């Protein structure tokens, strides 16, 4: 179960980064950057 959740988190991170690079509105990019922080920490099983 843990690994399924981690795969979902990894896919979500890839999706956010992908959209961040295509997004033209800087404020939306900032939002995406903030969302990435807890997801990365969870993917690495730090928090």
């Amino acid at each position, binding site marked *: 179960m843990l690994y399924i959740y981690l795969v979902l988190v990894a896919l979500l991170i890839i999706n956010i980064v992908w959209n961040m690079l295509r997004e033209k509105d800087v*404020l939306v990019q900032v939002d*995406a950057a903030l969302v990435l922080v807890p997801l990365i*920490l969870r993917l690495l099983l730090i928090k």
Partner: protein
Amino acid sequence: MQLHSKHHRIWAVALLAVTAVLCVLLAQQFLSMHEAEPIYPGPGVTEERLLSDWFPALKGTAGDTDVYILKGEEPGDSMLVLGGTHPNEPAGQMSAILLVENARMAAGTLYVIPRANHSAFTCTDPQEGAPMRFTIDTPGGERWFRFGSRATNPVHQWPDPEIYVHASSGQRLSGSETRNLNRSYPGRPDGTLTERISYAVAELIRAEGIDITIDLHEASPEYPTINAVVSHEDAMELSSWALLNMQMEGMDIMLEPSPKNLHGLTHRELGDFTDTYAVLMETANPSQGRLRGKTDEALVVEGKDKFYVRAAQYGRLYVPFDEDGHPLNERVARHVTGILQFAQAYTDLGLGTVTVDNMPSFTDIQDNGVGAYLNAPAI
């Protein structure tokens, strides 16, 4: 509001770099929680082992934890003290550490686990604003101690189910209780990490023939089971005797029978599934209550909170609460006195012999503070 830029790709890369820096900084802080406070065993400790010695499947996991053994010069019976079942209830952990650093056994054997849920010491509860550590002054210098979470770190046991079904009883609780060590007894060898920890504790009790098990807790001032001993029915006579002696020392404390329909707790399951006399003790800890104000190290150690003073004036609490609060010194004094009185009652009732020496009294700890009885930190 929109803020378009021709250089949106450069912005994205720059923001990703900032995200990476933030992740590194935050990771350092979160990972620092994995450092355990140093404990300096006194001369009464004859052996140090790991909980996994009684259940090898726990070895190398975040649930493995130190077990300090104090074997007496004279033969006798045995007592197990559990601190840190809930690492946001620091009086339990501190009382266990006080035993490790001071106690000497004249007769019998004392087993002490100061960090029963080792994993739960590696995080704090989300959205509680709790400190990650607290400090206590000792004659040899300042020492720090970890303040953790009520439950196993979700990094070590994740995800939670919607409903937690207690394995041996079928009792249904909210999903997050699956990580609560004191809802997981008697545990399962092939269960979750939390269930494996409780199974290891039960295995220790069975293998060593532990006669008395005392699980040290704290409760919010607005919680009805507070300043209390909760006792399995088999331990009622022992608890009554110990309680009388505690009251004679000036402690206001009550005795509650372990509810037969509340499962997963030490005072129920260890009494049912092992031969030990299983009891649990509670003191009043404002730093875990719902009515508290700022949650910081001062609240943990000094136990003063103006909102609890007001709640007491409205008659909403189950303990008296004035400007002096309920400091850690008082809460540890209560637990230590309880432990000593259980050992004394066990001997007085002719059940066997457990004699703990060299421990400060209730008034010693209250007057001089916990720090006076902690060993100097290593330089």
